[in-house]
């Protein structure tokens, strides 16, 4: 149906972003293709080797309450309560949020930080796209007009890895002024092999602080290294805009503060015993 309707058709998932846009007449699709009856797209199951596979229509609230997500993707679990309000989460879907690509959204940043992959399907076949390659511009993803996001696959967390999610909003449920999803990986000697800071609400989409990552790579994550990485993230990796909620300078300040908090928390988690050890 999607390939037949071309640019006039939109898929309806949770509708928590699309229908408001329609009510404002900002979006005026002539055809809505309702995905809510496709039971096969609603699931949270274990992935290969300890990861996760989540169907694109899975409601935020289901992900929020899933024990499987809490143990296998705690970063995702931690981000969920920040998404809007419970009423929105009861209806909104993981795939819908990820495909909508709001620059202030939590989930795109989380998926990039997790190195998740998305399965896209169309009448022409299917393909996998890494989250980092999926976000290409403001509200713009790699989805072709006839493609549907059907599944999100998150890889297993290796031992000696850590995570943190930080967000500042004026009130619970408000759009983030700045947020960050962080994942860090250590080798057996305690040196950082990779540190990812993926910010939301600082640009057109999830923004990875690559220069900050370079500072931490192959270093011992000391207080000084963390501070330097957070400072670099704020002054070399992001170029935030001003709007009615915050000035650019304040956003930059938050990038540094939240970056420091996130890295500190993530590295602390990376040095804790691995969950699989605790379960034994």
């Amino acid at each position, binding site marked *: 149906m999607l390939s037949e309707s071309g640019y006039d058709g939109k898929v309806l998932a949770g*509708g*928590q972003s699309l*229908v*408001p846009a329609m*009510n*404002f007449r900002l979006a005026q699709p002539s055809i*809505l293709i*309702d995905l*809510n009856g496709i039971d096969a797209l609603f699931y949270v199951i274990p992935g290969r080797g300890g990861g996760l596979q989540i169907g694109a229509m899975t409601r935020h*609230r289901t992900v929020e309450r899933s024990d499987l997500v809490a143990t296998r993707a705690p970063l995702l679990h931690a981000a969920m309560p920040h998404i*809007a*309000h*419970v*009423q*929105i989460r*009861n*209806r909104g879907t993981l795939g819908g949020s990820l495909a909508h690509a709001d620059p202030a959204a939590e989930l795109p940043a989380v998926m990039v930080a997790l190195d998740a992959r998305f399965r896209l399907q169309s009448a022409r076949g299917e393909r996998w796209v890494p989250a980092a390659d999926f976000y290409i511009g403001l509200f713009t993803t790699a989805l072709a007009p006839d493609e549907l996001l059907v599944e999100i696959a998150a890889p297993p967390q290796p031992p000696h890895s850590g995570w943190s999610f930080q967000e500042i909003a004026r*009130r*619970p*449920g408000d759009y983030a002024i700045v947020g960050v999803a962080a994942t860090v990986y250590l080798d057996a000697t305690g040196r950082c092999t990779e540190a990812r800071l993926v910010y939301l609400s600082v640009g057109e989409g999830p923004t990875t602080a690559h220069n900050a990552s370079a500072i931490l790579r192959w270093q011992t994550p000391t207080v000084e290294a963390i501070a330097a990485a957070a400072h670099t993230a704020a002054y070399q990796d992001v170029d935030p805009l001003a709007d009615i909620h915050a000035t650019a300078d304040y956003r930059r300040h938050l990038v540094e503060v939240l970056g420091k908090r996130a890295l500190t928390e993530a590295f602390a988690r990376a040095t804790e015993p691995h969950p699989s050890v605790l379960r034994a």
Partner: protein
Amino acid sequence: MTERTPVTVTVNGIQYERSVEARLLLSDFLRHELNLTGTHVGCEHGSCGACTILLDGAAVRSCILFAVQVNGRAITTVEGLASDQNHLHPLQEAFREKHALQCGFCTPGILLTLIPFLAENAQPTEQAIRTVLSGNICRCTGYQNIVDAVLLAANPLP
């Protein structure tokens, strides 16, 4: 003639059958087709919470759902809370006791948000109450009396 779609939906335990345009919002369906005007429309984009109803027991925004999407489903609106004309729901009693409404515009949405919350959180903290209410805007009360009403409902006096 605009195409119409049949919808069968149970609202507050009563089954209704109507024929509606696909573009009709659930909030407008409840108010105009069923004359259940207790569900209020504030912002029409999902932010204010005044339109919140229960869909199969879960609190959702009726202003960003289409009526055709609830075919075969069960809805609870504020009109479904009181057991009869003389007996309010205990939560409504607590709101009355604690003066938790003034103009009342936000109240239906708040009540319906709280019903599933209290079913799962029998002894909520004040913080938990304030967090669950973050999706409902009240311009009159400043929320304090609403919080007090919820605490009273959770801990009824003997």
